[in-house]
């Protein structure tokens, strides 16, 4: 866990890509879940943030 946080602080690609992947997965889940409509409403912005983040952080150093 501390490695992950260190990686985030030092702007390393691995942990940031992991974070972006989690945000995308959460966004997709929010889009398709059958429980609450507010999650569906905010799903698009979550997925968009995750996707843009993924594009940016994939240019970070290893």
């Amino acid at each position: 866990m501390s490695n992950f946080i260190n990686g985030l602080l030092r702007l390393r690609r691995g942990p940031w890509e992991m974070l972006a992947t989690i945000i995308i997965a959460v966004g997709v889940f929010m889009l398709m879940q059958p429980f609450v409509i507010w999650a569906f409403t905010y799903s698009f912005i979550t997925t968009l943030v995750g996707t843009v983040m993924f594009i940016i952080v994939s240019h970070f150093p290893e």
Partner: protein
Amino acid sequence: MSDRTIDRVAAATPPPVARKIRGLSDRAIAWIFVAPTIFLLLAINIFPLIWTIRLSFTNYRANRLTREPEFIGLRNYERILTDSDIWLNMQATAHFLFWTIFFQVLIGFTLAWLINKKFKGNDLWTTIIVLPMMLSPAVVGNFWKFLYQPQIGLFNYIVSFFTGKDPSSFEMLGQVNLAPWSIVIVDTWMWTPFVMLICLAGLRSIPDYIYEAAEIDRASKLRQFFTITIPMVLPFLMLAVLFRGIENFKMFDLVVQLTGGGPGSVTELTSINLKREAFEKWRTGYASAYAIILFVTVFGLASIYVKALNKVKER
């Protein structure tokens, strides 16, 4: 004679054209070759994408060409993301996605594990199993429609043989509770071989010496399966899940052929709903916003897919 690319191209070109080519640098020649592809990519992919983004902020209707589209900001996105009917379509898509992937992984992995054992007729069985994957979705949709016929369909007769129910007492494509399962069954039948092939590649990439070392350590077959086979096939399985997830999220042809989105809208997946909004209701601006939402979702999933693919490559 010089070995420059430009000279080799010039040597293979008629003299008048060659004289012109000799005046160009290697970089310029490279651009000449790449330019048609870049142009096509821009014209067919990038321009429509940018145009769709632009339209998604307007109330444009493609069937009213004389009316000037008005800029309405994020209203289309707001409407879509608060519409409970679209939320239900998303849930229908989620049901389809979850169960198709679940069955495809389960059956695909089991088949791959069995095919990986060396036995007589191994290649023949592999060919027979991958046949459904090679058929056109339109053809598959049509013949499964016949198989699901309550009066003459083979599927109903097989179910009645095992359950004792009257074959005409249920209608796979016409009943609200059965229709979502009917499309899951067909997609599983068609695409399980694909998952099987990916799992088979994963299983064949495991070196024998790992199992031999485990045998020496007296690890049981079950232990070998859970500590060697599953972890080493997992990246391949991830790849199959993501690929099928992306493909099934965009599923259109098979479901249109089978149920057309019905009965009611229980099998109306997002892509079918999108087509209705765009080409039946002609709400082009609204449909563009809808398409952008689906595009961002698929793009996000594809990013994860590429990452998983790179991980597999690193192995």
